[in-house]
């Protein structure tokens, strides 16, 4: 089961989907586009723990993390 994790005031909200289900995959891709359009950064990590940013939806990603746009503190 693939997961999209979106940071929010509750800690995070998780969206689970079956990447083999075309309808669920389309919904996940739409969520990805909406979030990144709203300024969220999307990131994935590999088995070693190295993190990378992703700018387009990766249907093979097991876990994608989204955090809101940065602002100066």
């Amino acid at each position, binding site marked *: 089961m693939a997961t999209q*994790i979106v*940071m*929010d*005031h*509750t*800690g*995070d909200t998780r969206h689970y989907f079956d990447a083999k289900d075309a309808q669920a995959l389309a919904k996940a891709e739409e969520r990805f586009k909406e979030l990144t359009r709203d*300024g969220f*950064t999307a*990131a994935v*990590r590999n088995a*070693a*723990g*190295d*993190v*990378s*940013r992703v700018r387009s939806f990766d249907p093979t990603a097991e876990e994608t*993390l989204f*955090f*809101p*746009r*940065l*602002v*100066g*503190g």
Partner: protein
Amino acid sequence: MFLFGRYPVEARSLIRVVRRLSRIFSSKDNSEARSQRLLRTWLTPEQRAQFDAKRYFDVIGCDSRKRYRIYYGTATNVHEIDVAGRPKVGWCFVPDGYLAAGDIMLAQKISLETNEVGALLIANRFPIELSRRY
């Protein structure tokens, strides 16, 4: 016993409120606890060990290869570290919105490791002398 005898309804109501508040603040599922769990999951084994021992972890900027230290906190918690391991300057940048400390620290880590220049362009510099940590 005295409370229940004299103010049965009020006392029980108060106890219920206190219990509920206690559950909220000590819950392992509040935003802070959830953000800490998420952060720990995304740290490398070395960063996790450092964070467990010292309440901070180091990251290497993807562009400059400089070292930054991210302290537990929600603001003025990122310090650039010089080659001798001393804090050099502070950088203040956070994800927009009301997020718990773990989420903020994770966003700071990912930003420095994947888009250092972009993060520092947004960030405000601050002198370390102003920080309470030194």
